[in-house]
């Protein structure tokens, strides 16, 4: 007699669901919804009770939070079926609801319910997991899961999910952005029973203490998730008593099928059946970083991340990532758990059901090439940022396609992009007394911009990455947690935006002073997008999202300036000006838009970053002059940019700003005349470029990427015929 409602084992239940869905294309194989159709108010009542239970649990337990990750709003409470399908969830990072299914599938596959080594699955048991191969999005995301047992039968699961502030990565604190294998990712555990009787074991707490740098914060967050899950569990058990187990189980399944139909109907009503391409490339410069310890990983990479979306006539979506770069010794390999989070982030853009659940997984199908970063053959590769790669192709790639399709259909109010822009500045070191410390500044995770839309500019600093409840947090909080880094400045940066008819959000700028590091301080900065920017393709003549930017100044005269009462620069722009004037001096100046290398800081070092510069929409000359005037009045753009980029001439006499219509028309005409003068027909460009490509006269990283990707048929089909090159062209590239 199995534990799952109806007497099935967990594996039987999961297999039954999978079979039914594969045969029918419907959630749980349901072709009719008798509970919903028979008594709609009753099912709706259960539905809203599920949502409020999840939200209540979250709103309560978050008060126990000790770490910036939950302040940024990432915490999510999920309610799932016995087979692991999320039915409802609270606010929080939506992706976590998607990855839970994999965790339960793993437990089913390995027979956790019948495991004599752990005593099976019982009421009060706590299961934890942070392995993207087996059930979590990345190793920073620990899922804390309680079985919902009613009268000795498993009727569901409740899980709390959160990003922990440090996951014990070998090479850097916070998140293992640089990590060639799973062995350097840090703490990685498959689904494990970590507690009983609603208490985590001492062994689990010792694991968090020994295997992560910020064990106490992580333990507190673990307790927070457990409390949240317990609160939700109590409410769910009351519901099961009220509605009955059979109804509870059936209603959950019908909610998933109902929402699948809602998504399909929305796609047919709002989108256009089509094939759209929104590829990306990512540059990682690790050759100088990995050194002798990891020679096999000491390589610079340009990785190809295709993102083809097909809206099919039956209302389903095919997400095609074929033609991608090979799997590699970086942290950027995507396993199933990473996928589930990454593609869920776009849930609010693609599917608008009243709550988050796994219905969308029955609407989407994926195509990948085995052996690529999108479908690694090896299970031991670094994967901490795999979910981030999936987020990026979702936000900067597929998401653009969803929105363009809605624009074509006329639903302009639904046209805004959701680019997941974030950065984390982390430090690690020892105080003068030898005491180690580590910290991660989450300011730049919880201040993401709202993406540009078909009717408005991007909005800076408006939400936490992937969820609406972000709070940038106080500078004092981050200074307390990262004692060596003193905040010099936070603010928006004039002119730092992707320009367009509707401007991308204005860039956000931060500055730090390294203050008395004592023993050692290592600074690291990473985020998205890096290197080359958000995506290859901009929106309708607008520019793709800009990469983040880091300026590192070592051996400065900052202490001297402070002693004299001279203000330190508040941005990299001011720092560059001060360096040019000679007011500020630095022994070493490094600027970078890719991974900022681990950097040994010394007292008086200055660091400036600029980030969150999302894509624009439409071309700058289509921006209404009145909008440019508003930007000038607010100081978001300078008069020089207004004129040279937007072709808007405005005067600011007498304290008011007024657009000179005649001068603006002339300026815009001049810009177009310059375009006409400099541009050539694409056919002519093709002839010139083809020669370069044919000879392999390309940057080293690009050549290496093409050589690798040409092993895949989809990439070959797009590349070779376009340039009219022979089949063995890839073999000729050195």
């Amino acid at each position, binding site marked *: 007699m199995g534990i799952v409602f109806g007497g099935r084992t967990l594996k039987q239940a999961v297999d039954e669901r999978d079979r039914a869905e594969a045969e029918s294309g419907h959630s749980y194989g349901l072709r009719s919804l008798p509970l919903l159709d028979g008594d709609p108010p009753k099912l709706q009542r259960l539905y809203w009770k599920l949502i409020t239970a999840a939200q209540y649990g979250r709103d309560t337990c978050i008060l126990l939070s000790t770490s910036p990750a939950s302040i940024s709003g990432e915490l999510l409470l999920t309610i799932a079926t016995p087979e692991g399908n999320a039915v409802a969830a609270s606010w929080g990072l939506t992706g976590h609801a998607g990855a839970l299914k994999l965790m339960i599938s793993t437990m089913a596959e390995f027979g956790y319910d019948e495991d004599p080594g752990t005593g099976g699955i019982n009421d009060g048991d706590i299961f934890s997991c942070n392995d993207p191969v087996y059930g979590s999005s990345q190793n920073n995301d620990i899922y804390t899961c309680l079985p919902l047992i009613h009268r000795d039968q498993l009727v569901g699961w409740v899980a709390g999910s959160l990003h922990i502030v440090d996951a014990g990565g070998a090479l850097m604190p916070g998140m293992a952005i640089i990590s060639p294998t799973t062995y350097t990712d840090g703490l990685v555990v498959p689904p494990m029973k970590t507690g009983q009787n609603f208490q985590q074991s001492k062994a689990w707490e010792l694991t968090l203490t020994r295997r992560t740098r910020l064990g106490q914060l992580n333990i507190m967050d673990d307790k927070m998730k457990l409390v949240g899950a317990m609160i939700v569990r109590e409410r769910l058990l009351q519901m099961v008593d009220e509605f009955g187990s059979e109804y509870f189980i059936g209603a959950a399944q019908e909610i998933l099928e109902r929402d699948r139909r809602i998504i399909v109907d929305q796609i047919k009503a709002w989108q256009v059946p089509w094939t759209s391409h*929104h590829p990306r490339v990512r540059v990682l410069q690790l050759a100088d970083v990995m050194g002798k310890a990891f020679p096999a990983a000491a390589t610079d990479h340009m990785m190809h991340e295709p993102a083809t979306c097909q809206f099919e006539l039956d209302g389903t979506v095919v997400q095609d990532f074929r033609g991608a770069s090979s799997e590699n010794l970086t942290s950027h390999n995507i396993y199933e758990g990473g996928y589930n989070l990454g593609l869920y982030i776009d849930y609010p853009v693609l599917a608008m059901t009243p709550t988050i659940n796994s219905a969308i997984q029955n609407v989407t199908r994926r195509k990948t090439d085995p052996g690529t970063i999108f479908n690694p053959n090896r299970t031991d590769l670094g994967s901490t940022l795999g979910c981030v790669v999936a987020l990026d192709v979702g936000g900067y790639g597929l998401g653009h396609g969803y929105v363009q399709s809605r624009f074509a259909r006329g639903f302009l*109010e639904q046209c805004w992009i959701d680019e997941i822009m974030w950065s984390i500045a982390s430090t690690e070191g020892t105080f003068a007394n030898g005491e180690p410390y580590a910290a991660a500044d989450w300011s730049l995770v919880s201040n993401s911009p709202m993406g540009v839309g078909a009717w408005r500019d991007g909005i800076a600093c408006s939400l936490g990455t992937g969820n609406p409840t972000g709070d940038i947090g106080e500078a004092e909080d981050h200074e307390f947690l990262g004692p060596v880094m003193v905040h010099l400045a936070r603010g928006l940066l004039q002119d730092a935006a992707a320009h367009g008819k509707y401007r991308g959000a204005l860039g956000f700028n931060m500055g730090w002073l390294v203050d008395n590091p004592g023993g050692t301080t290592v600074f690291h900065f990473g985020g998205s997008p890096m290197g080359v920017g958000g995506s290859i393709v901009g929106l309708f003549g607008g520019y793709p999202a800009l990469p983040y930017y880091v300026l590192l100044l070592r051996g400065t005269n900052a202490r001297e300036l402070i002693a004299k009462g001279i203000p330190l620069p508040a941005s990299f722009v001011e720092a560059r000006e001060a360096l040019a004037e000679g007011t500020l001096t630095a022994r070493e100046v490094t600027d970078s838009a890719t991974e900022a290398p681990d950097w040994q800081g010394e007292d008086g070092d200055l660091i400036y970053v600029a980030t969150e510069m999302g894509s624009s929409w439409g071309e700058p000359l289509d921006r209404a002059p009145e909008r440019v005037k508003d930007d000038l009045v607010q100081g978001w753009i300078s008069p020089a940019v207004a004129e040279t980029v937007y072709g808007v001439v405005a005067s600011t006499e007498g304290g008011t700003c007024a657009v000179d219509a005649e001068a603006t028309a002339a300026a815009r005409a001049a810009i177009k005349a310059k375009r006409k003068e400099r541009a*050539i*027909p694409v056919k002519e460009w*093709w002839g010139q470029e*083809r020669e370069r490509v044919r000879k392999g006269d390309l*940057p080293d990283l690009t050549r290496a990427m093409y050589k690798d990707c040409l092993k895949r048929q989809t990439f070959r089909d797009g590349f070779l015929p376009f340039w*009219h090159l022979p089949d063995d062209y890839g073999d000729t590239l050195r």
Partner: protein
Amino acid sequence: MTGAGGGDRLSKEKMRLLVDGDLPAHDVKQLIHAKDKDPDRFWTYLEILQERVPWSNKILLRISEHLYIVRKEPEGRIVKCDCGHEFGDYRVNWKLSSEIFVRRSREALDEIYTTGIAPDPAIVEVREYYCPGCHAQLGVEVAPHGYPPVFEALPDLDGLYRDWLGAPLPDESPNWYQDRSTSVTKNWAGQDRD
């Protein structure tokens, strides 16, 4: 509660404001939160767009701020700019019929990326695609050197009109939903050899 197409019709006046970016934010938010969308939105949209273009070809689909797929004989369905410039068969990437300016030098990048934060020209190039007629900037790519221009979207117009709009197009054919871009570059290659 489908949220699909069972709502009240959006007035043409409000739709015009939405298209122009002038609909007040509160009204846009109400549209976003509307339980059901208006089922005639696509037709209202086409009406407004058709009124605004200076030419008479029937618009089948808007594909960007300036570009439309329109009916034209004998080709059948072509891409056309609102200025009137025609790009040819919509199954061919319109970028191949446009003009291009590539920003590779620091000087050229600084014209647009004025703060100095820019894609690294040693790694990628910034391509701007213009309409040969009006020189509106129709597309931008930040692409690796040698990366083929991206064919951003190829719609299944027959499927859209027949299955999702319930108004089949008179010239349906299984040949429409095909990417024919390589036929152009093959032709160019042939001319190159000549």
